[in-house]
């Protein structure tokens, strides 16, 4: 399975969306470079306090340069160890909860006439409840503004959710265009 996202420069944002959208590396690597390093430093910080505390309780005298070297090595080991451990513990893989979307076949739009003069255009009212005043106002306004076109107002069969193939065939046969209104 390929979890590598599209190639973009990392944006510096740390949200899951920005990770999905922006990272150019596998997402596991992305996290190794960011959040887990922060965790490692936190771990080291705690470790150093612990070592100092042990030294204090044992009343040991610090051997300056040698001690610093030893401490550095210990810290380095801690960085490497904690980085791997923290990332393994913190991350999990989960399954995609979404279903399968169907493919979409593109439908070419119907050719447009150059003009509607001398032609018939259907205004189809899908009869959403109590919208007739709007439909009638539209019909009247179109007749007034474009008088060379015949504007035919027709109610669709049955309810607004029902199909009306008979009317569609009639429009295809006689009409140069259609306006279909759905209310609310």
């Amino acid at each position: 399975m390929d979890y590598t996202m599209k190639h973009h420069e990392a944006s510096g944002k740390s949200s899951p969306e920005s990770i999905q959208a922006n990272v150019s590396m596998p997402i596991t690597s992305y996290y190794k470079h960011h959040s887990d390093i922060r965790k490692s430093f936190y771990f080291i910080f705690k470790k150093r306090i612990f070592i100092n505390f042990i030294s204090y309780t044992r009343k040991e005298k610090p051997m300056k340069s040698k001690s610093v070297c030893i401490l550095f090595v210990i810290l380095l080991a801690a960085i490497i160890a904690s980085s791997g451990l923290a990332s393994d513990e913190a991350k999990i893989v989960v399954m995609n909860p979404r279903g399968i979307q169907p493919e979409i076949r593109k439908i070419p739009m119907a050719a447009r006439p150059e003009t509607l003069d001398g032609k018939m255009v259907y205004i189809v009212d899908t009869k959403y409840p109590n919208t007739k005043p709007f439909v009638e106002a539209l019909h009247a306004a179109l007749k007034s503004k474009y008088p060379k076109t015949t504007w035919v107002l027709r109610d669709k069969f049955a309810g607004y959710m029902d199909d009306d193939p008979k009317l569609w065939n009639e429009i295809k046969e006689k009409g140069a265009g259609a306006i279909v209104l759905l209310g609310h």
Partner: protein
Amino acid sequence: MGVSTVPMITQRFEELVTTIAFKKGIPNMRITYTPHPITDRPADLCREFVAGNNPISGRPMLEEIYAGLTRPLSAADSKGGFLKRDPRPRLLPSDTADNLMEYFHKHGYTDGNPIILPTEEKVQEMLKATSHEPDEWVGQMRPSPPHEAWYYTVEMVAVNAVMADAKPEYFPVILAIASKGVTSMFSSTSSFARMVVVNGPVVKEIGMNTGIGALGPVNHANSTIGRCWTLISKNLGGSGKPGETYLGSQGNSLNYNNLCFPENEDGLPAGWKPLHVQKGFDKSESVVSIFSGWSINDIAWYSPLPIHEVIRGWLEHFFSFGTTQATLILDPIVAADVASNGYPTKETFARYLADNTGTPGWLYWSHNPNALEQAKAGVEPYAGWFKKGKGAVVPVSRYKGRRRNNSNFMASQDNNEPTTSIEIVVTGGGTNTFWSGGDFGYVGSASIDQWR
């Protein structure tokens, strides 16, 4: 249709129609928007709307319509082919549990409440509860008829079952619900609700609650199975994105759990059949039955009247969007009282209710404009009913007629035609003579045993 067309939609649904136009394969559809709403607006205001601009584009409405019908097509408008969809990886990118939880919430994969993250291990455990293969198709589901259907397998249902914190033993029940292909979040402005009733031996096997609080949040199986249906509807059925694949204006809190409960078969009066037996299944089978509606009333009422008359009175005046169907959820002691009052079966009681309920006048006349016209013209019996005033009950039952048998609208896969549109289910703990009722109609049933 093959003819130059401009659809007109109110501006409130821009997001919806843009999405649907894309999914129907016409991404550049020339839509003209009107102000919202146009329903119930006076004629003067409608003329103003028409003379004004498309509120989305800012262009004059009439000119935009004319241009939409005549402007030449671009090369892209005339082109066929396929539109690109997002890929669907089986696994999501790894992350911390907290980040993944946030990711699921942000992408609308949840119901807003915490979920169990669906690791492969947990999904594998869930899959052990069915003999069906993980890659077997279970069904398809869509938010409402204009929307596309999404498809899903047994494994995909299992992922959602884990998310709902369902136990593996509940999985066959969840698969049976999913197999019906009915979304629990039907996308309509009217905020639909759904209900699922479980019958048969599985109820006791998985410890569903048929007693005190059967409809409430007190039982793990009742709660998680019902919740899972909503997760399935969102993630496998593509529902639940406000404005795009969910339009319920106010929403419906019943969608959190979809009234998931089992029938109390031990509490049925003698002679009253369990729901699944009424629907043609054997009593020994385990079955889910799905209902669709909007609302439910919890009736806590003492009356000197016999309880069947109280229920009749409630049913006569009950009003919501769905006014021609009803489901009664009776406590076992209410069912026993009804039975002892002379109703030896659920069917006889439903028949009594359907035959003896009228319709409040205001509701009858507003739903039957033709009858109102005839009443005003003096045609009987309408004129006589109308003379009694709009507040008087009209002696026409809303529950006698057959339910609308449009499988697309209700997403039903059955062709069930009940003799009344009243269903009766019994559940509850018998702590009082109370009951519930709502406008739910029966959609269909599915065998659970087939998914074991």
